[in-house]
């Protein structure tokens, strides 16, 4: 009959919803907490995962991705002799894509005997491991030389009695500076200290060793009991190719005597880390968010019960059931969105603080932060559905009865 329709402007609806949640600020804050924590956990987990993955891949590309190791498989009978040929370093370094390569083994302690700095009775003799290493290995572990130099192919060929020491070992053996050509004694034999290394980027246990040229070691103490190993430093991206060629290059007639380890595919590793962490923590964040949504649902439902006279009044003033539903849905959606916004801030702060404390670069996908209020909004809408339906079904006659 009439052109008069019952309707409400969207701006008015939102203003009513805002007034609805602001009329009980304490309860609103408590209700928000669940969503804030849930969304915050989501953002923090995604951000931390991204940051950690970024960190891993950064380290990975620098060192691990360029590292190939070759081990000798112990032979069934001892008559076959050493698996690594004498010119193993040269054979491998000829391969395209190899930077440095070297063989190394730990010298048997009972053959090499005690290591001392000065040949005086009563000098400290602790257990000191002796590492036999080719010059290529010394380069491949990427040492930082504090003083002196590394031994080279010249020392190796002529079987010179020279050693390179890690900084801590040098201090323990009383070697402080190289100006007066100090020596250390291994089983009574004098070795000239040619260099002291402060740090290495690979095989950090080398810092605790007295490093002797491998040829010198095999002349003095014979073939090692422990099977030697080889460390190959490749150019970036060449590791897997080198890995497939190394055994053949070393011993074309018997490549099965070697076990070659190449780094895993960096992308696979990164994805693996991502999915492992994400799956676990996102599940927890999901639980948090669900609890937050239940909190909103609960509060909104209580509000519907409490405000039943208000609903009756609004119906008497011309509100249709859908207007009532829209108002309560807007209230819960507003709660969810505000919770999402605060959660995004909280999560970002956690990621940045965690990254700072571990000296990482914080990495966050834009959609993580942008999606947080949306996640809150969705949670709020879902949580508001049932209370809104209940509100729409309130009978005005009942509700207005005092």
């Amino acid at each position, binding site marked *: *009959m*009439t052109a*008069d*329709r*019952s*309707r*409400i*402007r969207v*701006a*008015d609806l939102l*203003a*009513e919803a805002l*007034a609805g949640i*602001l*009329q009980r600020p304490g309860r609103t804050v408590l209700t928000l907490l669940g969503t804030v924590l849930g969304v915050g956990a989501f953002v923090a987990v995604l951000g931390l995962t991204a940051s950690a993955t970024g960190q891993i891949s950064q380290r990975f590309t620098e060192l691990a991705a360029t590292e190939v190791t070759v081990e000798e498989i112990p032979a069934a009978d001892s008559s076959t002799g050493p698996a690594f040929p004498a010119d193993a370093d040269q054979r491998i370094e000829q391969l395209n894509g190899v930077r440095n390569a070297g063989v190394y083994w730990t010298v048997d302690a009972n053959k090499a005997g005690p290591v001392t700095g000065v040949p005086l009775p009563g000098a400290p003799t602790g257990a000191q491991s002796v590492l036999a290493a080719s010059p290529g290995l010394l380069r491949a572990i990427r040492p930082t030389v504090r003083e002196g130099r590394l031994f080279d192919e010249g020392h190796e060929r002529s079987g010179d009695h020279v050693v390179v020491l890690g900084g801590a070992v040098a201090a323990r053996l009383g070697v402080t500076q190289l100006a007066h050509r100090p020596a250390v004694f291994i089983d009574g034999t004098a070795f000239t200290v040619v260099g002291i290394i402060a740090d290495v980027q690979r095989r950090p246990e080398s810092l605790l060793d007295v490093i002797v040229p491998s040829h010198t070691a095999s002349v003095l103490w014979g073939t090692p009991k422990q099977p030697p190993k080889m460390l190959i430093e490749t150019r970036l991206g060449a590791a897997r190719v080198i890995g497939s060629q190394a055994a053949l290059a070393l011993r074309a007639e018997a490549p099965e005597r070697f076990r070659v380890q190449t780094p895993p595919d960096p992308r696979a590793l990164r994805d693996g880390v991502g999915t492992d962490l994400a799956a676990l923590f996102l599940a927890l964040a999901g639980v948090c968010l669900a609890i937050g949504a239940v909190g909103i649902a609960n509060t909104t439902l209580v509000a519907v019960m409490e405000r039943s*006279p*208000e609903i*009756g*009044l*609004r*119906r*008497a*003033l*011309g*509100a*249709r059931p859908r*207007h009532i539903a829209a108002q309560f849905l807007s209230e819960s959606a507003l709660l969810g969105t505000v919770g999402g916004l605060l959660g995004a801030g909280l999560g970002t702060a956690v990621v940045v603080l965690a990254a700072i404390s571990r000296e990482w670069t914080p990495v966050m996908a834009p959609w993580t932060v942008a999606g947080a209020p949306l996640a809150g909004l969705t949670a709020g809408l879902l949580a508001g559905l049932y209370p809104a339906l209940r509100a729409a079904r309130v009978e*005005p*006659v009942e509700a*207005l009865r*005092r």
Partner: protein
Amino acid sequence: MTVIELHGVGLTYPGPPPVPALQPCELTVRRGEYVTITGPSGSGKSTLLNLLGLLDRPTEGRYLLDGVDTAPLPERERTALRAYRIGFVFQSFHLLPHRSATENVTLSQLYRGTGARTRRREAQAALERVGLGHRKDALPSRLSGGERQRVAIARALAGEPSLLLCDEPTGNLDSATADTVLELIDTLHRDGMTVLMITHDTGIASRAGRVVSIKDGVLTG
């Protein structure tokens, strides 16, 4: 010109056994009339008010509001009639506790889609009209009982309804305060407003131009 026309309107709650709340009745209220409906509690006053206020549907008869037959209308249009034609005044005021007097009054035009500025202006005019121009921004908790009911009346007036439907408007007020509220209603009536008031107090009922009594669901007037 009639505002209310009831033709054989009755309401029976379906059983078993069926409970007749209002026997079929006839009632006509013309524009500008002041009618009170009086009767003891349980007599069917509230049922009649709910029917007149379009909050409930009769099970028989025809109810014409401003000449519009409301029986065949869908709920959507009955709701619209409430929004545009009827101003409610309740015994317990039904003000929103956390909203100012002005905001409470603006609610009556909220569901007409009227712009916020217009609603505010007309709400303040309505508050002036009930003598509360100085308490526009007060919260209901800071108002006396009489002031609260006057805010509620302002809310009912703000939409310029055809009919002011008052349900025991002084039931929660002391007699001195009640008088000021009743005088306000008298004034509104003198200014041309159609008023229908329900009360159990025959003293109050006698202020109206016409008194209709109801007892055991039977309307006699």
